[in-house]
């Protein structure tokens, strides 16, 4: 067994250290630190579903295994994509992750959700395969909003400029969507448009928005799996959703006027 494989089993040591710091941080007056600590501690409690799932997997339930492999396929591919280049390499990381999960099932400890545990294994695999330049970069650094293309949610031109009596108010209000926008939003064409808009996002924005809004993960789960603070998660989510909304606005208005 390669050392890298062994590394995949347990929780990330740095994460454990972080956790101990967060725990000790009960004394820290900062509400921010307390919030993060509370969010993290939460995550170390697997849900009853997690416990049942792991029991089923240990018991040889192939349907349960197939279901979870399918369910986590998209999320794991995107996680791998943060570290490795190209679809084939990402798929290799995901498959390798599942082999690691299979071999490590007995070592799953009720200290995290199942998803977080699988993500931790995948991040270790991806780091290893990502090559020397990415190996030592923790997930939290790859997803730091400070290194992510920020900027306002909307073009500043949409608002009245400083100096104007109504500075900060709408100069170009949101274009109303067509009366049938509701129907359009679920149409295949719009779904493809959203997919394209997601592809245009930064990797950090994309993984947060897809986990939240497409895969339906809670903010707590996303924070745990991606080692993000709640605040940073919201920053990335805000940028992502704002951009996708802007794409929809252009599309739905254009369709209305056409």
């Amino acid at each position, binding site marked *: 067994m390669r050392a890298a494989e062994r590394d995949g089993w347990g929780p990330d040591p740095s994460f454990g250290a972080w956790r101990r710091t967060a725990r000790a941080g009960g004394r820290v007056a900062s509400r921010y630190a307390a919030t993060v600590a509370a969010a993290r501690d939460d995550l170390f409690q697997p849900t009853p579903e997690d416990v049942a799932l792991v029991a089923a997997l240990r018991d040889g339930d192939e349907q349960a295994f197939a279901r979870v492999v399918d369910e986590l396929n998209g999320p794991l591919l995107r996680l791998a994509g943060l570290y490795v280049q190209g679809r084939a390499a990402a798929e290799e990381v995901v498959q390798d992750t599942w082999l690691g999960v299979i071999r490590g099932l007995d070592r799953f400890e009720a200290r995290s959700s199942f998803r977080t545990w699988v993500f931790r294994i995948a991040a270790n695999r991806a780091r290893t395969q990502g090559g020397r330049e990415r190996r030592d970069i923790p997930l939290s650094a790859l997803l730091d909003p400070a290194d992510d293309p920020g900027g306002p949610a909307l073009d500043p031109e949409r608002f009245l400029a400083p100096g104007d009596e109504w500075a900060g*108010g709408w100069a170009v209000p*949101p274009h109303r969507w067509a009366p049938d*926008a509701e129907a359009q939003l679920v149409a295949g064409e719009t779904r493809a448009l959203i997919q394209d808009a997601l592809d245009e996002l930064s990797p950090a924005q994309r993984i947060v928005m897809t986990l939240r809004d497409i895969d339906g993960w809670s903010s707590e789960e996303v924070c745990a799996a991606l080692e993000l603070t709640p605040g940073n998660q919201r920053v990335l989510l805000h940028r992502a959703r704002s951009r996708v909304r802007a794409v929809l606005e252009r599309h739905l208005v254009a369709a209305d006027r056409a």
Partner: protein
Amino acid sequence: MSSDGTVGRGSEASPGPPDTATCVGVVELVTEYLEDALEPDVRARFEAHLDDCEECEVYLEQMRATIVAAGRVDVEHVAPATLDRLVAAYRSAVRARRNPGANGV
């Protein structure tokens, strides 16, 4: 911006954190609002702004619609061949565990 002047009047557009006095601030706080992450007093001011500002209300509704629409995007399923391979590996591992003595599964 509403015409009655109760909102949208940001006397100085300082580059501080977004605030609820201006539409530009409200737009930047939309996600924190939807995530229920605003302090109670900020949340109250945010909602008061929305009561007075139709444009920001439209904006909020469009953000909600965006989230709903994103939820309809297809998830990426695993390729059947890959799934078969992984299930086979899983099956072998389960068998090997049940029969620790048997080699070379």
